[in-house]
């Protein structure tokens, strides 16, 4: 489902921030094409009675408010005055494919990561190299390099990556992989990306050590960039990852608390890495905190959307496509977006959520409820809202092929099937 991007935002100064919904509806009453086809009414959100909305009520008040209050209120900004370029229509053809654009920077990424994993014992080396075989999606490094280029161009430089920025792309992938290795031990998984997991092949003890080693190598590479702020920003990710994992240990009683908890956990476990990596590359090229915030907010919103779609795919995709079996979240006792939404229609899910689907038959029944409810649709819709916000943020940067690719990327996040 393509979301054609038909508008170029007019640059004005002193414009006040707009709500996410106004953004969807379009500036000054113009409605964007995608709004009509995919938008659902959120009558419960205050002050949003705009035309073009369907009047079907959807219980997204608490969630909607949560998005609105947590997004950054930014002024439209521009480092130097620029002529207005509105009403120019970008055709889809002109939008560069993110993968292609990022290709030259990502070419030897995995090889370079392997060089950072400098270890004498050959078995440990093969464990550390195991997931850097080039078969991963390299989604995070792609976002990082595109963001870096977009920021570089925005800062009146040519697009090329600074060495530190490329390091950050590598570091983000290393941190991500280290956390995956540990997650597999925690979850007792035996498959990842179509391969047997490290813990399944070599045992839990060695798997944990491999994860620790990758993390230490990432930390060394980070230090070598030589920028204290960047070190702080990315160290925060490491802490968020662990805290996010801890958040999964407990369950919340209260329904609205539960959703907030879910979104916060999603930020910590998935979005924080992307958000802070984007922020880090922006710091290396630009000292303006507004630019850092744009980069951060893009990453945050895309990251959350990404995870929401992931959670949907856990219900809808077949095992073969994902490379790992689905309904995994339910089997792990985790209540994700689709389940939390479904709960509103099937209150029977409450008890199941509280006991983490531990009673025999819970997983299957819960799955049924979710597929019968509109939980999947609602989660998808929520992911779309986050993408809109990501687009809104990134559009504040000076136009560039990379910026457009980042916009295109949000669409890819929403439409991926694995």
């Amino acid at each position, binding site marked *: 489902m393509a979301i054609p991007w038909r508008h170029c935002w007019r640059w004005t100064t002193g414009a006040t921030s707009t709500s996410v919904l106004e953004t969807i509806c379009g500036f000054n009453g113009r409605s964007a094409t995608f709004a009509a086809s995919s938008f659902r009414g959120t009558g419960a959100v205050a002050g949003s009675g705009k035309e073009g909305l369907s009047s079907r009520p959807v219980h997204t008040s608490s969630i909607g408010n949560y998005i609105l209050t947590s997004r950054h209120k930014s002024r439209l900004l521009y480092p130097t005055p620029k002529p207005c370029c509105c009403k120019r229509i970008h055709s889809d053809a002109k939008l560069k494919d993110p993968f292609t654009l990022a290709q030259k920077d990502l070419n030897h990424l995995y090889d370079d990561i392997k060089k950072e994993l400098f270890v004498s014992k050959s*078995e440990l080396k093969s464990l550390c190299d195991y997931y850097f075989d080039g078969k991963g999606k390299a989604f995070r490094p792609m976002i990082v390099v595109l963001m870096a280029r977009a920021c570089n161009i925005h800062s009146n430089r040519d697009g090329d990556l600074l060495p530190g920025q490329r390091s950050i792309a590598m570091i983000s992938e290393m941190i991500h992989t280290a956390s995956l290795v540990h997650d597999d031990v*925690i979850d007792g998984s035996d498959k990842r990306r179509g391969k047997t997991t490290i813990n399944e092949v070599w045992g*839990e003890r*060695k798997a944990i*050590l491999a994860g620790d080693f990758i993390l230490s*190598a990432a*930390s060394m590479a980070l230090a070598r960039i030589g920028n204290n702020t960047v*070190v*702080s920003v990315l160290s925060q990710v490491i802490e968020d990852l662990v805290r996010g994992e801890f958040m999964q240990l*407990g369950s919340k009683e209260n329904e609205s608390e539960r959703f907030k908890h879910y979104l916060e956990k999603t930020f910590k476990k998935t979005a924080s890495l992307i958000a802070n990596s984007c922020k880090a590359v922006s710091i290396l090229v630009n000292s303006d905190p507004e630019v850092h915030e744009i980069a951060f907010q893009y990453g945050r919103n895309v990251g959350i959307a990404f995870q929401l779609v992931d959670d949907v795919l856990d219900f809808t995709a077949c095992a073969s496509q994902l490379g790992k079996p689905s309904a995994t979240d339910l089997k792990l006792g985790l209540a994700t977006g689709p389940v939390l939404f479904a709960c509103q229609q099937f209150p029977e899910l409450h008890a199941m959520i509280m006991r983490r689907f531990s009673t025999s038959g819970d997983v299957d029944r819960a799955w049924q409820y979710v597929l019968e409810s509109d939980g999947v649709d609602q989660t998808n819709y929520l992911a779309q809202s986050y993408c809109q916000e990501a687009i809104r943020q990134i559009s504040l940067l000076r136009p560039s092929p990379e910026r457009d690719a980042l916009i295109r990327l949000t669409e890819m996040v929403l439409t991926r099937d694995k």
Partner: protein
Amino acid sequence: DNPMTVIRFRLSCIGLLNRGQRNISIFSNATPSNLNKVVSDAEKIVGYPTSFMSLRCLLSDELSNVAMHVRKLVGTKHPLLSTARGFIYDSRNNLQMRGLVVLLMSKAAGPSQHTASDLLPQDMVSGIYPSQRNLAEITELIHTAFLVHRGIVNLKEWTNSDGPLKDMQFGNKMSVLSGDFLLANACTGLAQLNNTKVVELISSAIGDLVQGIYHEIPNSLEDNSLTDEINMVTWEEQTFLSHGALLAKSCQAAMELAKHDKDAQGLAYKYGKHLSLGHKLNSDLQLFVKSSSADPETFSFNSAPVVFHRQIVGQERWCHQLQQAKTIGRQMDYTKLRSTIKLEKGVTSTIDLCRYHGNKALESIQCFPSSEARSALENIARAVTKF
């Protein structure tokens, strides 16, 4: 009761207890008690008992959560339980000795010759900069994290005698999470030191730790395999990684934080390295120098006295001795094996090596100006080589 009387009474009880402990340490030959005394004296020099370090971390929500869950492990055989217990009270292992050494080293090196906003003399407490204190705490966090991660069990090796599999899985989960939590806190703590050289140095120490510990994991289910090729050179290299790198690099980092020159950094590194090696050798020797106890204790064939022994007698004689030490039921009689080893030169070679490292540590620290802190570090080095 008069409150003052009560207080005086309680203080005198504590005093009695302490004196009682010291009496015990005089009569026993065990080095650890001697080391305990040296450590507790040294703690006064750095301003507070170092066992309070990382308290902030331990009292965090996440770890309190873990503590709650770990209670479910009581009665199981998961190693996390003994690690957790050992962390709270353990008279044998010196609690937080690494952190203490880092603090003492910081103090012994004296104030910085450079001026910087984070190196102000008025911020020094007991002669130690705040960043150095934080570093000491970070060192302990990393050490503890790996104690916890070491305790993870391979589920494929689980047998019915280990208890329910669920308990092992659960214990593993808690171990991974708490270890990761400690490491994450170490990382953010490192970032706050605002010194990328130190971040790089300590991160490399973490890498060293991993490599060292990796070697400790037996490759086959049969532990103490005969085919392991090991000699003392390899032993030292591996032991440095698993037991020495962290302290050596932390000591060096403490110098870097106060902007002391390369020479000071080198000396601090040397002290940390040799002290750690000496300490490990001492610990390996305990089973061989203590008067024999009632319980037959097993020992690792990778402990220093055994490795020396194997190197001295050669592979063939070693295999023969192993055969001789097996009972009719093909079980290893460790007491008999221990006696065999004590007959040869393995134990004395280890004692010599231990003294060598102790002396090297002394050599390094004696290059620093004379001070209370330096004396404490000398005492620690000497205590580690006493038998």
